[in-house]
């Protein structure tokens, strides 16, 4: 239960593990999630369930146009409405810090004189009822004078193009060719032009990747409670509490220690909660009114309330010898960053450095840029720049193989990178890179039977393209098979100080040793809370582990992003456990050292609630060693440092670890109607060490399904003339249902990365990369069409686009 002062819906401590099973539940076991049953039964308290006595409801007024000067804002009528407690615009912001941003502080808390994208926050309202707040917001009169919209590279860099941001002063402006280009990263290695002369075939292609939404099911929401010391306590669903804090506090004019943050129940993230949404707005209204303020977006607003995956145009040239060895790759990746920077610079770094995929190529010429446009802002989403590139380079690999008359898998294996391969950035891959092996494994899996929709009882339309819509009983249906493999970096790159913090406490509770793990890690569904308990059991030999709710009373855990949390915060938990173990052993030596020579001489472990020697001899019960004392450590932990990429050549040891997955897609396409049923998406992935095999398979299946979504249905459609979003709803932004989700057999490899805790490798993103191009390849196989864009719509398969 939350303490007396905490709002309802605040997460409480969760103790996992039952007494009497001390040897169970360590790493490598599929312990069950403490939040699993609650989520499935609907009892889990999400941030949208928070409730506080006397709370007000916040509402945001958003721009109805994409690019316009704000001529005037009239809040009079809204303020006059009974039940309204506050209306705030840019002019009401309390300090001179009025912008925020993950890396570049270019995003206004509330629009200042101009809006740069459809749905930009213009004003905020607090009222005693959500409907009152909504109606009041609708009464705010905003007069716009519309400006021309920048929607793509051509309009962004045209002569005389209007600038999305004037007077840029960020650290990228010095190396970009145009102020409407946020960041540019070239990567040059070898001599691609020279190498091209050795090529027997050269294949060029242009590809288009649509705008994908994270589509997390729990919309943005949180509750800001003003505190007696003039500060505020924000209960929030986010991916990184301390990153939010760093951006929120200056806008409020408060020192960071007066902005307390507690992680509320998070309903999915996938990158969409890396940027702030309603955090500052709720705090501003709470401080202005002196009342707790809750804000919950609905689905419509959520589509405007977070960044999306960058749509991209990608231009590739691959060359290969007649024997099938790649000679060179040239590529140019144009990412549409939309109106604000968000994570775009880092996405550019990933797209460029991972731009040729998991292949060994000595001569490369890569360029990636992110545009500023008036389209919706784009930023982090699972796969983070590597997804768009993988879609294109894997299409290219199939094209080159076909040109050479080679089997596409054999061609990939021939060019697959391995441990020791040098990346385009000049960085050698210094841990296992089993790319060829992953391909071999997915290829070796048995294929699903042909005409699997037929049985003795007739046709099961659920197994056919169109499903329950009853469009085909087998007519027009052609099967296709396609392969893809991808490479994703793990952790924050390019010299970022990517650390985490863990506080671990060990004491006797109820006659039993218990470990308490306290981190600021955002549990967004990835299963970190399960893994932390497993690590503590393994390192400290206890059965019971209590996971403390995440908050800012402990140091930063970094972001739940970049497949990094099990590696980095898991590493921090492991490290703090080791430090606690040393302290416990010191305690034991002081108390019992004279009883047995092994206390001084032997390697000691904590196992099954006891101190044991590495030979297995029991020296003492932890209960006796600890007595009334509590041993506690809070420590930061870092992975190996990385370096920035050279701005001109892209050279540098920019990444700490790579993650690889391969997919084989089997699809059935109704070639007359252009409908697709993905029958199976087999995946093989190297995870280094599966700390929780069940969670690992879950991550791989989830990532695979998300990749399927952008292959055949998911796309935010932005009107190219107005830059307005046309389908901000789950009615028209389609995500896969269970009838769209195929069986996903998963083959998990565990080839240890000796640099990582337990040898583990980040898992969450790699499967999202190769899933999409595998499905596209399978559809191409079925239809013979070129299909250079994703998602594929029925129009593209029927010549009716």
């Amino acid at each position, binding site marked *: 239960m939350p303490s007396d002062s905490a709002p309802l819906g605040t997460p409480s401590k969760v103790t996992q593990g039952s007494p009497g099973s001390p040897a169970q539940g360590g790493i490598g076991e599929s312990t069950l999630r403490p939040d699993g049953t609650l989520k499935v039964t609907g009892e889990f308290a999400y941030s949208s369930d928070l409730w506080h006595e006397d709370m007000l409801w916040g509402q945001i007024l958003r721009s109805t146009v994409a690019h316009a000067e704000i001529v005037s804002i009239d809040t009079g009528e809204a303020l006059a409405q009974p039940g309204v407690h506050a209306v705030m615009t840019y002019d009401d912001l309390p300090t001179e810090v009025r912008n925020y941003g993950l890396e570049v502080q270019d995003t206004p808390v509330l629009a200042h004189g101009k809006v740069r994208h459809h749905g930009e926050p213009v004003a905020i309202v607090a009222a005693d009822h959500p409907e009152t707040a909504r109606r009041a917001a609708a009464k705010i009169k905003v007069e716009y004078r519309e400006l021309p919209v920048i929607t793509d590279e051509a309009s962004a860099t045209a002569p005389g193009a209007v600038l999305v941001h004037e007077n840029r002063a960020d650290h990228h402006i010095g190396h970009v060719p145009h102020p409407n280009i946020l960041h540019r990263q070239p990567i040059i290695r070898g001599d691609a032009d020279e190498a091209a002369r050795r090529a027997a075939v050269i294949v060029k292609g242009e590809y288009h990747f649509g705008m994908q939404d994270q589509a997390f099911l729990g919309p943005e929401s949180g509750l800001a409670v003003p505190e007696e010391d003039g500060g505020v306590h924000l209960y929030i669903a986010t991916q990184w509490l301390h990153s939010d804090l760093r951006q929120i506090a200056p806008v409020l004019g408060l020192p960071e220690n007066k902005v307390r943050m507690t992680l509320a129940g998070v309903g999915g993230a996938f990158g969409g909660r890396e940027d702030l949404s309603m955090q500052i707005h709720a705090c501003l209204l709470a401080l202005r009114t002196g009342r707790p303020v809750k804000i919950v977006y609905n689905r419509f607003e959520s589509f405007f309330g977070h960044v999306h995956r960058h749509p991209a145009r990608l231009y590739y040239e691959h060359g290969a010898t007649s024997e099938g060895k790649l000679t060179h790759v040239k590529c140019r990746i144009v990412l549409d960053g939309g109106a604000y920077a968000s994570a775009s610079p880092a996405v550019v770094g990933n797209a460029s450095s991972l731009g040729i995929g998991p292949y060994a190529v000595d001569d490369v010429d890569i360029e990636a840029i992110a545009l500023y446009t008036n389209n919706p802002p784009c930023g982090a989403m699972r796969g983070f720049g590597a997804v768009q590139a993988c879609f294109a380079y894997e299409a290219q690999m199939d094209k080159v193989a076909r040109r050479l008359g080679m089997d596409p898998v054999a061609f990939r294996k021939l060019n697959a990178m391995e441990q020791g391969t040098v990346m385009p950035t000049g960085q050698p891959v210094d841990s296992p890179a089993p790319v060829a092996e992953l391909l071999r494994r997915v290829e070796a899996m048995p294929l699903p039977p042909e005409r699997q929709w037929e049985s003795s009882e007739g046709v099961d339309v659920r197994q056919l*393209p169109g499903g*329950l*819509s009853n*469009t085909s009983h087998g007519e027009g249906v052609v099967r296709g098979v396609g392969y893809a493999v991808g490479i994703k970096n793990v952790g924050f790159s390019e010299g970022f100080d990517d650390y985490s913090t863990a506080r671990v406490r060990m004491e006797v509770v109820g006659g039993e040793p218990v470990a308490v793990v306290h981190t600021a890690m955002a549990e967004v569904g990835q299963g970190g809370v399960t893994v932390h308990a497993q690590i503590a059991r393994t390192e400290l030999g206890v059965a019971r582990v209590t996971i403390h709710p995440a908050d800012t009373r402990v140091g930063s855990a970094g972001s739940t992003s970049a497949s990094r949390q099990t590696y980095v915060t898991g590493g921090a938990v492991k490290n703090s456990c080791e430090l606690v173990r040393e302290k416990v052993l010191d305690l034991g030596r002081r108390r019992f050292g004279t009883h047995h020579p092994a206390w001084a001489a032997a390697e000691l472990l904590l196992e099954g609630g006891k101190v044991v020697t590495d030979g297995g001899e029991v020296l003492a019960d932890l209960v006796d060693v600890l007595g009334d004392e509590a041993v506690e450590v809070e420590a930061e932990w870092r992975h190996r440092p990385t370096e920035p990429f050279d701005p001109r050549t892209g050279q540098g040891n920019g990444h700490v670890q790579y993650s690889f997955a391969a997919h084989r897609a089997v699809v059935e396409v109704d070639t007359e109607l252009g409908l697709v049923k993905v029958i199976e998406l087999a995946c093989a992935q190297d995870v280094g060490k599966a700390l929780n095999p069940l969670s690992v398979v879950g991550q791989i299946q989830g990532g695979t399904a998300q990749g399927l979504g952008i292959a*055949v*249905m998911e796309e935010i459609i932005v009107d190219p003339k107005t830059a307005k979003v046309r389908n901000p709803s789950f009615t028209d932004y389609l995500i896969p249902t269970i009838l769209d989700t195929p069986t996903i057999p998963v083959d998990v490899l565990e080839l240890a990365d000796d640099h990582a805790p337990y040898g583990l490798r980040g898992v969450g993103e790699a499967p999202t990369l190769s899933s999409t191009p595998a499905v596209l390849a399978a559809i191409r196989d079925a239809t013979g069409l070129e299909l250079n864009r994703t998602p594929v719509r*029925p*129009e593209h398969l029927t010549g009716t686009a």
Partner: protein
Amino acid sequence: MDFLRPASWEEALAAKAEHPTAVPIAGGTDVMVEINFDHRRPEYLLDLNRIGDLYEWEAVEGSVRLGASVPYARIMEHLRTELPGLALASHTVASPQIRNRGGVGGNLGTASPAGDAHPALLAAGAEVEAESVRGTRLIPIDDFYTGVKRNALAPDELIRAVRVHKADGPQQYSKVGTRNAMVIAVCAFGLALHPETRTVRTGIGSAAPTPVRARTAEDFLSAALDEGGWWDNGKVITPSVVKQFADLCAAACNPIDDVRGTAGYRRHAVGVLARRTLTWTWDSYRGTAQQKGMVA
């Protein structure tokens, strides 16, 4: 907003007469979405959930009188023999939860061109039983859809039921969406063979401002079937006739480009669906198909 809760059909009619702008609500699967999205703020909501008769159906001579609120889930379960086209259409409606709440009355009241029931009702030749304090009238389905989201109901009328002839021949229904379940129609097609009258009827959804029939295609096919003696000899319809029928169905569309699909695709897809559903129904008529595609 006032919430009117009549306890009986008579009270409901009286309330609608007194408040002609009142919006009837039964399953709420359309109305509540519109209210939640703030697309509509009716002065009065007229709750029909207490009127049990609307959830009943009965056989009346050769017809089924289907209460306006009978949920799609029950149509799928209980009326597959009598109303096979509508049962297939019901299968394609949204999700199981929505199918447990929504009924044909709501589809008719909203009269969206994308309503899943319309093509099946058109093909079956249904009649809408509209009632007011002034009395009852039967509106032929062909006259019911009068414009985009407009219908032939008078302001004081409520939909009591639809009357649909029990199928006298095979019926089919197909819908295209860009997802394999729970999707709004990009286009839909219903086809009913009526061997007793030796006629064929069609219904097209989401491919014109209103649900429409492909009358020219129907006339062509009816004539061709007569001419070939096919109703009697049960031969396979020649491919050129099937193709001509499909082309005429496609030509009956008057679609738009929108986020769900292009006009060109809709026309194309309706043609494909017309060809396939004709093949399925005719095969069935010939006694060769065994309930293909009718999954539990």
